[in-house]
C-alpha cells in the first residue's frame, strides 16, 4: 500500500517490533508523526498538493461569502451576461476551434454559456473540498461511535450494530446514496450526509477491531477498577488509542468522497446549477465533446490532482505511523 520512499520510516528510534502499530504510535504522538511525514518526499508532495487545493477552496469561500466575487472579478471572472458579448465554448489560450481563438482573458476557455472555465474550477474547489471533508467527518463520527460502542460492550449490542452496518455496506454505495438523495433531497447537504453514511461501515470496522484489542489492555482494566465510567473510558482512552489508523483512513476517505460526490453531481445529484461543481461541469461538457474537448478535460484534471493529493498524503501518513509495513 505504501507509496513513500522507505528507509527513513523504517529506522524510527522508538520502534518496537513486538507491539502493535497503535502502541508504537501512542508512545510517540502526533508531533513525531508530523516529523516523519515531513521527512518523506512523497508524503511532502501530498501535503503540498492538499495544502494548495485547500488554500484555493478557502480563497473561493472567502470570495463567495465575504468579497462577493471581488477577487475573481479582479483576476478573470467576468460576470457580464450580456448575450451580445458572451463567447461560448472558447478553447484554451493558444488554441483555436470553430467558436474562435483562445485568449488570455479565459486561459482555459469558456463553457457552453460563455463562463470562464478556470473561474468555475476555482469555485468548484470549494464544493469538492467542503463536501469531501464534511462527508468524511460524518462517516468518521458515526463509524467511530458505532465501532467503539460495539467493540467495547460486545454481546447483543455488538451483534445488532454490526448487522445494521453490514446491511448498509451490502448496497453498492453509489446506488445507496442515489436512493437516499431521492428520498430526502437532491441538494449538496444530502450528498454529504449520504456519502458520510456509506463510509460509516469503513470506520466502524476499523475502530471496532482496535477497540476489541485495546479492551483487554491493563490500563483499561485499571481505569475500570478505579471506577471510571464506561463512557469516559471509551472517549478518553479507547478512541484516542485508535488515532493512527483512523487518521490514515480519513485522509484516504476524503479522496474517495470527492470522487463519489463528483460522480453524483455528474448524474445530477448534488450541487444544483448555477453553483459550479466539477462533476456538474463534466456533465454539461458531454454535449460538446466534439467541438470543445478541452471543456471535458480540465474539470477531470482538477478532480484527479485533488484526489491524488489526498491519496499520497494518506499513504505517507501510513508509512509514518506504521513503520513495520515497509520492512
Amino acid at each position, binding site marked *: *500500500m*505504501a*507509496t513513500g520512499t*522507505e528507509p527513513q520510516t523504517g529506522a524510527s528510534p522508538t520502534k518496537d517490533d513486538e507491539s502493535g502499530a497503535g502502541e508504537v504510535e501512542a508512545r510517540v504522538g502526533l508531533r513525531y508523526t508530523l516529523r516523519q511525514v515531513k521527512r518523506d518526499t512523497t508524503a511532502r508532495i501530498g501535503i503540498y498538493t492538499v495544502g494548495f487545493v485547500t488554500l484555493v477552496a478557502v480563497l473561493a469561500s472567502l470570495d463567495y461569502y465575504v468579497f462577493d466575487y471581488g477577487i475573481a472579478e479582479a483576476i478573470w471572472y467576468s460576470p457580464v451576461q450580456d448575450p451580445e458579448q458572451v463567447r461560448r465554448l472558447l478553447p484554451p489560450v493558444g488554441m483555436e476551434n470553430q467558436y474562435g481563438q483562445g485568449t488570455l482573458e479565459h486561459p482555459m476557455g469558456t463553457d457552453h454559456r460563455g463562463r470562464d472555465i478556470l473561474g468555475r474550477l476555482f469555485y468548484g474547489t470549494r464544493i469538492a473540498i467542503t463536501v469531501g471533508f464534511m462527508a468524511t467527518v460524518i462517516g468518521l463520527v458515526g463509524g467511530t461511535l458505532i465501532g467503539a460502542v460495539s467493540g467495547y460492550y460486545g454481546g447483543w449490542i455488538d451483534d445488532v450494530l454490526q*448487522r*445494521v452496518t*453490514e*446491511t*448498509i*455496506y*451490502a*448496497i*453498492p*454505495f*453509489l*446506488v*445507496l446514496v*442515489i*436512493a*437516499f438523495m*431521492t*428520498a*430526502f433531497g437532491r441538494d449538496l447537504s444530502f450528498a454529504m450526509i449520504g456519502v458520510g453514511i456509506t463510509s460509516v461501515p469503513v470506520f466502524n470496522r476499523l475502530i471496532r477491531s482496535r477497540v476489541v484489542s485495546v479492551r483487554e489492555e491493563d490500563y483499561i482494566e485499571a481505569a475500570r477498577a478505579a471506577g471510571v465510567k464506561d463512557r469516559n473510558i471509551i472517549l478518553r482512552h479507547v478512541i484516542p488509542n485508535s488515532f493512527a489508523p483512523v487518521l490514515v483512513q480519513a485522509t484516504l476517505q476524503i*479522496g474517495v468522497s470527492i*470522487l463519489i460526490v*463528483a*460522480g453524483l453531481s*455528474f*448524474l445530477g445529484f448534488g450541487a444544483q446549477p448555477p453553483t459550479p461543481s466539477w*462533476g456538474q461541469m*463534466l456533465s454539461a*461538457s*458531454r454535449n460538446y*465533446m*466534439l467541438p470543445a*474537448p478541452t471543456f*471535458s*478535460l480540465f*474539470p*477531470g484534471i482538477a*478532480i*484527479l490532482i485533488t*484526489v*491524488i493529493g489526498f*491519496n*499520497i498524503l494518506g499513504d505517507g501518513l501510513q508509512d509514518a505511523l506504521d513503520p513495520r509495513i515497509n520492512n
Partner: protein
Amino acid sequence: MGLLRYTLWRLAQAIPVLIGIITITFFLANQIPGDPVEIMLGPSPAQEQVEAIRARYGLDRPAYERFLNYLSGVATGDLGQSIYYDRPVLEMILLRLPVTLYLTVSAFVFAIATAIPLGVISAKRRNKPADHVSRIVSLVGVSTPSFWIGLMLIIVFAFYLGWFPARGLPLPWEAPGDIRGAETQFEVLRTSLHHLAMPMIALGTLQMAQITRIERSSMVESLQGEYVKLARAYGVPESTIVRKHAFQVAQLPVITIIGLGLSTALGGAVLTETVFEIQGMGRLIITAINNQDYELIMGTTFMFGVAFVVGVIITDVAYAYIDPRVAYGDE
C-alpha cells in the same frame, strides 16, 4: 464436503442481509416526496381514476401492510409493477441485469489481467524503475473518476480516431438479425466486444489500480516468507520461486479485495452506463428515480444489493477453495 457446506452456510447467512436491504430500500422509497400517481396521470386527474390506480398498486394501504406484502412478494419472485414501463419490475430487471453483469464482469477480467502482471513485476523489482512506473499507474488509477476516463476515451478513440463506437453495448448472445451490420453470431460477438472495450476500461481502471496495489504488497510479503528462503537455499531458480511458491500464497488478499471492489464497480456501472448510453441496471435506476417509479426504484436497489451479496459469496467460496482452512475452520 467442507466446501459445499461452507457455501450453503454463507448463502444462509445472506438471508438476513437481504431482508435488511429490502427494509432499507422500502423505507427510503417511502420517504420519496411527490405522488407517483400524479406523475402517471398528469396534473389534475379525475378522483375516481386516482383511487382506482391507488387501489391497483396497493398505495391506499398502510405502510407496514405494504412492507409485509412486498416482503412476501420478493420471496415469491414478485418485485411489483413498474408504473413507468407498465411491466413487472422483475421483467425489466431481467432485461437489463445481463448488460450490467456483462460490463462489470468484463471490467474485472480486464482489471485482473492487467493488475496481476503489474503487481508481480512491481514486487519482483522493488524500488526499481518498473516498480515506480507501476505504482504511479496505480496511484493515478485510484484517483481518477471512472466517468471522466470514459469521456476522455470517447473524445480520443471514438471522435478523433474513430476506432471504437461511443455508445451502446449489444450482448454477445443477441440474435444476429437484431444488430445492425451483424449477419452471423460471430459478427454479433465481434460487434459486442468492439462496443465493450471502452466502457470496460473506464469501469475497470479503478479496480486494476486497487488490485495492483494489493498484489504488489502481498507478493512482497510472500517473497519474504520462510518457504521462499528455504526454496532459495535449495537452489530453486528464482523464476520458479516467484511462479510456483510465492505467487499462489499471495493471491488470497487479492481475492478479498476483488470482493470488496464489487461494491465500487456496481456503483460505477451507473456512471459508465450513463457516459456510454448503455441500457443496463444503472440507467434503469436513474429512469426509475426520474419518474418516481417506487417499485422500480426498490426493485433495482434491491437487485444491486443482491448482485453485490452474491458476488461476495462467490469470492468467499473461491477463497475457501484456495485456502481450505476457511471452510473447515467455521464448522
